Each structure stands twice: as structure tokens, then as C-alpha cells.
């Protein structure tokens, strides 16, 4: 169970275990009001080694590493660096000991430049005590060359892609001479190509003697890149293994504590009539710039149409335009032949469109409302839920209880605030409301974002169940694996346009990734491609 160095020495020698650990956490416990986030956890990592910290959301992975970085103080336990017991009261102590951390939510000051972000807190100064910008820039260039982390030192961070921002974070740690690098969910926000590049960088770092801890809940990544795997569940370490000794299936079982269906089992699609027809849709974003530049497609009953794309290529505006949350400036949207282009959300719902929004907390639920009220949202005007504008509480309670049971929402009772539920149960509650009203079309945007394997399995099964009952599903997701496993057809969006269309199961993650980042030939626009050919 524990990761004491003796036990570690018995592991295969090729995983860096021949060296003593550089960082050890011994019997760490951390209690938050009402939660024991870490319960007697021990872990260690050695130079030249990649340790994966695997666990569902809420397992306590971030908490453990925040303790190591001094952002949280442990309720009990000991931290040992280079064999010496140390006190880490604040991040500056951790930095001094050579610990660097890239947080799940980046710790970057967006309006500042790359160089300014990297040197912040440890600025080189000249004899006047002023920041020596030339020296700062030179050091940044040196370090990025040394580890192969290309980034423009003078760009403002807000102008960089997420992948680039992550590099800045890694450079920040390296600038502070980190010997231990902790990456908290580093791949959650990256495209497949960026993930690939990140793991190359990590390889480079460990080959130069760094110890790397990667926090994740993605099984395939762990299998591909970890030297050693520590699995956490509900605040405890429940197992330690290596990729050679385990399978994705056995890891999933360790993580969740029961068997999990990882691959969706879906039968062939029984394609029905066109349910949603989007034609030449043009939509402006919040800055009044065109986010959708003429998008056309149709979703049939009995099929899942997946939209793949890097975040910010018009997916949000598309979803909002269909669900009545944003007014299109051109084109049409129709549902079963009825024009709903200019309908607001209320009329769109009445027409038969349900929406699982990407932001559960801000749009999916009213967190302060209890479960009953959240289930009623959107249907509050309908009988029997209300009559003449007065809510029928007992009808609502009955309905809510039935749906909570139906959708397996784990809650003490239906009158707690939605904010008290875990992420997975919140999403089940959203599904209970949106699917419970029996829509013609389900628009699901990032339906499993931030959920763990158990909850993801549930959401996926429900989406497939909708499809199998003949409903149309439009799925927007940044998770390629999700798009690929659920969709019968896949559209790739790039810069406000549909740039590619594939049959489900006939495309690889790499191909999708290429189109998502503006590469690739566009099979949907053969005429233009041939024009270019002849023009050349």
C-alpha cells in the first residue's frame, strides 16, 4: 500500500527506481470542513521518473500536491526532500526546495508578457534595483532552448494558445531551478497534437534528471507515459503499479472501486427523418465578430452527430443559436420542418429542443436552488407544475423524486441545494431535467467535462439511449475520444466553418486533430481544393 523506498526498489530497474526518491510524502492527511481529502497518503518520486497520480475527480490528487507545494497545510504527515524532513509553509518554501507546480487552472497573469510571467517574484535586477529586462529575456531564451520549449518571450500571455500557456508555466518552474515538476491535469485542455508535444517535453525533462508527477484521470495517458502509477480513491492510495503490470480495465476498477464499461456498446444507427436542419447559419460572437460563417448540416432522428473542434472555433455560438440563446444574423434553423431561427429559449424548449450546456454551474443549474426547483426550470409554466402562475409544490416534488430516482442522482433528499451535489450528480440532475421532458433533439455541449469515469459512463449510456429511441442528438465536445465513440457522423469545426465530415468509426484521432487545427484537405469542399490545384 505505502510507497516506501524499499518496496519501490523491487520494481523493474528501468523505471528510474535505482535512485533514491527526491520527494517523499509520508502519511499525509488533510481535512477540509466535512471532507477528509487525504487520508494517510504516502507517495514518492525519484529523479528521472514520471509518476502518475491517478484517480477520479475528488479523489484528493490536487489536494495532496497542493500540500507538497505549500498551497495547503496538511493536518498531519511529513514531507521529505532529499532525505531531509522539511517544512513547506508557503509556495516560496517549495520553490526554494526545487519543487515546481503547473496548476490545473494556470497561474498566469494574462496581460503580462511571457518573460514577465516567468520572472515574476524572482526578477533579475540591475544595480539600480530595477528589473533588468535584457537579462530576464536572455535567461528565458536560454532555458527554453535547453529543454526544447519553444515560446515567444515577448508575447502577451493572453494572446497565446492554451498549449503555449502551459509551456510558459513549465518554464516558470524551470526558471526557478525546479528539480521536481508537478503537473495537475495537464492534458485536460490540450488538443491531441499538443498532448503529444507535452509528453515529448516531459520525456526531455526526465532525461535531464527531473522528477515529474502527473495528475490525471485519463487511463490511456497513464498507460502511455507513466513509469509508475499511484491510484487514489476517496482520499486514500488504493494501489501502486506500473503500466507493464496492469491494464486500463484494471486501473479503472481500482479508480472507481467497481467494474466500469469503458467502451460504449452501441448498435448500428436506425436513421430516421431530418429533425434539425441548419442552413447557412451566420452568428456573431460577443465582440460582434462572425463566429459562424455559414454553417449547414442536418441531424436525423436516431443518430448522434458529433462536432469536434478546438474550443473557440464557433461551437459555443452554434449551440447558443440552436437553443435560442443567441440570435443568428443569417441563415435558418428548423426543427422538424418548423422554422425556429428566431425563437427564444422558451419557445425553443416548447418546440422540442433540450440543452445540456457546457457550463453546468452557470447555465445548467441554479446552484442555490434545491433539486426540485432545478428539475422544474424551463417547465415551470406547464401544468401540472403550475396553474395561473402559482407553483404546484406537491406535483413538483413528486415529479422531482421520480426523476432523481430514474437518473440515479445521489442526494440525501430532493430539498438540498444543487451546490451540495458532486459534479457527476449535478450533471445527472441536468440530464434528468432535459431528457425528462422527452425532447425531439438533445443538444449536449461538453456533457462529461470534469466528470469521472463512473459518471461519464452514465452520461454516455443516456445519450445512446436517446439515439436508440429515435431522437436526434447533437454532441459538441473537446474530448475527441468521446466524439469518436458516441457519434454516428462527425463534423470538424475550424474558425467558424465546418471543414470536414466523417462517418463515425472511419477516422483516427490524428486525422481529426489535423483538421481541428486548420490542417488537412477539406473533403466537403472539393471544388475549392481543385481550384487551388489548377491555380498552382
Amino acid at each position, binding site marked *: 500500500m505505502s510507497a516506501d523506498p524499499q518496496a519501490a526498489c523491487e520494481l523493474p530497474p528501468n523505471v528510474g527506481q535505482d535512485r533514491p526518491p527526491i520527494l517523499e510524502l509520508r502519511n499525509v492527511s488533510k481535512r477540509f470542513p466535512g471532507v477528509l481529502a487525504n487520508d494517510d497518503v504516502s507517495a514518492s518520486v525519484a529523479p528521472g521518473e514520471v509518476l502518475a497520480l491517478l484517480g477520479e475527480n475528488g479523489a484528493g490528487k490536487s489536494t495532496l500536491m497542493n500540500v507538497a507545494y505549500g498551497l495547503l497545510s496538511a493536518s498531519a504527515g511529513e514531507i521529505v526532500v532529499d532525505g531531509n524532513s522539511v517544512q513547506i509553509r508557503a509556495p516560496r518554501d517549495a520553490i526554494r526546495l526545487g519543487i515546481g507546480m503547473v*496548476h490545473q487552472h494556470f497561474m498566469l497573469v494574462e496581460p503580462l508578457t511571457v518573460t514577465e510571467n516567468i520572472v*515574476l*517574484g524572482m*526578477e533579475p535586477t540591475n544595480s539600480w534595483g*530595477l528589473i533588468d529586462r535584457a537579462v530576464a529575456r536572455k535567461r528565458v531564451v536560454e532555458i527554453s532552448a535547453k529543454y526544447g520549449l519553444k515560446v515567444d518571450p515577448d508575447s502577451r500571455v493572453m494572446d497565446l494558445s492554451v498549449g503555449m500557456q502551459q509551456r510558459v508555466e513549465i518554464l516558470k518552474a524551470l526558471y526557478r531551478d525546479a528539480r521536481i515538476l508537478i503537473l495537475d491535469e495537464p492534458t485536460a485542455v490540450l488538443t491531441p497534437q499538443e498532448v503529444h508535444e507535452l509528453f515529448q517535453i516531459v520525456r526531455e525533462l526526465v532525461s535531464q534528471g527531473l522528477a515529474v508527477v502527473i495528475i490525471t484521470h485519463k487511463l490511456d495517458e497513464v498507460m502511455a507515459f507513466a513509469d509508475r502509477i499511484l491510484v487514489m480513491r476517496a482520499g486514500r492510495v488504493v494501489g501502486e503499479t506500473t503500466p507493464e503490470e496492469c491494464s486500463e480495465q484494471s486501473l479503472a476498477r481500482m479508480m472507481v472501486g467497481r467494474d466500469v464499461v469503458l467502451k460504449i456498446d452501441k448498435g448500428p444507427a436506425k436513421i430516421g427523418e431530418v429533425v434539425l436542419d441548419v442552413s447557412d447559419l451566420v452568428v456573431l460572437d460577443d465582440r460582434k465578430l462572425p463566429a459562424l460563417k455559414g454553417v449547414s448540416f442536418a441531424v436525423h432522428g436516431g443518430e448522434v452527430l458529433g462536432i469536434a473542434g478546438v474550443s473557440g472555433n464557433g461551437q459555443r455560438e452554434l449551440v447558443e443559436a440552436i437553443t435560442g440563446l443567441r440570435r443568428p444574423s443569417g441563415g435558418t434553423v428548423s426543427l422538424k420542418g418548423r422554422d425556429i431561427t428566431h425563437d427564444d429559449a422558451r419557445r425553443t424548449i416548447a418546440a422540442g429542443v433540450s440543452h445540456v450546456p457546457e457550463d453546468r454551474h452557470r447555465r445548467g443549474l441554479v446552484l442555490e436552488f434545491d433539486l426540485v426547483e432545478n428539475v422544474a426550470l424551463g417547465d415551470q409554466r406547464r401544468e401540472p407544475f403550475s396553474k395561473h402562475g402559482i407553483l404546484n409544490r406537491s406535483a413538483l416534488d413528486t415529479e422531482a423524486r421520480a426523476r432523481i430516482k430514474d437518473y440515479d442522482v445521489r442526494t440525501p433528499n430532493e430539498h438540498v441545494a444543487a451546490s451540495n451535489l458532486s459534479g457527476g450528480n449535478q450533471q445527472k440532475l441536468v440530464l434528468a431535467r432535459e431528457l425528462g421532458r422527452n425532447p425531439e433533439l438533445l443538444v449536449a455541449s461538453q456533457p462529461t467535462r470534469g466528470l469521472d469515469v463512473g459518471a461519464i459512463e452514465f452520461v454516455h449510456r443516456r445519450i445512446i439511449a436517446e439515439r436508440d429511441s429515435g431522437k436526434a442528438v447533437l454532441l459538441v465536445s473537446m474530448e475527441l475520444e468521446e466524439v469518436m465513440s458516441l457519434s454516428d457522423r462527425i463534423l470538424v469545426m475550424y474558425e467558424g466553418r465546418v471543414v470536414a465530415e466523417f462517418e463515425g468509426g472511419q477516422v483516427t484521432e490524428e486525422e481529426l486533430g489535423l483538421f481541428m487545427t486548420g490542417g488537412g484537405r477539406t473533403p466537403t469542399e472539393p471544388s475549392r481544393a481543385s481550384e487551388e490545384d489548377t491555380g498552382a
Partner: protein
Amino acid sequence: MFSEVVTPELFASAVRLATPIALAAIGGAVCERSGVVNIAMEGLMLISAFAGVAAALLFGNAWIGVFVAVLASVLFSAIHAWASINLRADQVISGTAINILALGVTGFLMETIFGHPGTTDTVKTIKPLMDLPAGGGGVLGTIWQWVDVVFLSYTPLVYVGMFSAVFLTWAMYRTRWGLRLRALGEHPRAADTVGINVLRGRWVAVLISGFMAGLAGANLTLEQVGSFTENMTNGRGFIALAANIFGRWTPGGAYMASLLFGFADALQLKLQLFSDVIKIPPQFFLMLPYILTVIVLAGVVGRAVAPASVGKPYKEKG
């Protein structure tokens, strides 16, 4: 009428009227860049305006008055810092409380010290820094008159305002302190994770803002009016807040925006004299600076982007 309105005195009066707003707004820019909203500037100016006059009368020296004014304002800004940084109170509520407190305290002390409400006795105001001879006739004389009046005719704190606008802008963008200050207001946790002391940084910024508001109050009573009248700041602290936003949270920008407000004020004073000629009631002109404030705050003048974490209390660790 044009030549009667547009005189060097109009511009000089704009600068003079802008100065208390600018001094406070410059401090406000520093404060908000650190992530703390300071709507207490109105109250801080009022306290210091009163403390300055009281001390100047007591010691018979206007410079001691300036010192005491600044001291009082810094002390009261410490209340704001303590409440909003350490106790993590709502910064708008803390600021409002100080504004109300300032009104009450000055009113109360007025009665206790001077025995009557209204206006205090008068002190001798601080003289202009330079007293240069008037120019002769001719074109050169006219040019000299403009230069003298528009640039060289002011009391010391007016120059302090100009100087601090330049100096603090430079410091904000060129020094380590400035870099860290900007990080605090944008993403305090990022600053914390690289070992910067967030609470201390914000304290310093709030105290600087208190210092500047103190100079603003001192300028108002000890350089301009010579006496204190209840609630004499008359919304200048709030206009300073608007100037800070209009100036995009930079000391230099805040100064320029204050000049605009000062100019509106100077113009309205001048135009009031002509209200008979142009048949517009003087009350209309009185509204000018405030209308300008409303327009600025309503965001007509471009969409200003505030520091991302301004107004949000920061909790160090769990």
C-alpha cells in the same frame, strides 16, 4: 465672447480644479491595480481636508497641516485595508462605511473644536511655488503670459500631482514593485504561487492611495479654499474613481482624465458668468462635471478592462 472665455486663466483654473481629483485618482489607480477597490477616497479627502485645516490653525503652519492631513488619511485608509484585505469584507461596503464615517466625524469634530457647524475659520493658504514677474507687451509678452499662467503659477501640491502621475506610471511599468502590483490585481493566486506576499502588497497599495487622497484633501483646503466646510469634497472622490477608470487604471491616464473633469469644472464656472448673455441657467453648467462622470462611468468612452481580480478578497491558504 470666445476670447473672454478662452484665456490662460481658464486652463490654469482647469489644472487647479483637476488637482484634488487627480491626486486621489492617481492613488486610486495604484490601489485598484493591486486588486482593492477604493471608493473611500471621497471620505479620505474629507477627513484630510478637515484635519489639515484644524492642524494648520492649531500650529499656525500650513505645512504641518499638510502633514497631519496625510497622516489622517493614511490612518483611515488603514481601516479600509484591514477590513477589505485581512477581514475580507466587501470592499464597496467598507469604502462606503468610511465615507459615512468621514462625514460624521468631520461634522462632529467641527462642532466640538469650532463650536459651530458650517465652515471653519480661515487659514493662510500655501503660496504658489514660483512668483515670476509679468511679461511686457507684444507677442512675446503674450506667450510669456500664457506660459507663466498655464505652467508656472501653481502651488506646490499641484506640481506634486503632476510629478506623481509621471513617476508612478513609470514605477508601475518599469520597476519590480510595479510588475508585482499589476500581478496582484490580475491574478493574486498566481502571485502567491511564485512567493509574492499578496496581503502585504495590497496593504502598501491601499496606504499609498490613502497618502495620495490625503494630499488631495490638503490641496483642497490648504492651497485652494483656506477653510473647511462640511461635505466640501462634494463628490470629488467619486469623480476621481471615474477618472481612474477613464484613465484605464494608470496614474498618467488618471491624471489626464482628471484634467478633463477639471476643465469641465473650470468651463462651467466661467460660463456661469455669461449665463445672462447666452440665456442658459447657471445650474445647467453646474451639472457639467457630473454629467461627464455619468457618461464616463456608463462606459460610453470605450470599454475599459478592469484588473481581473479587482474587488475580490484574497484568502491565502486553506
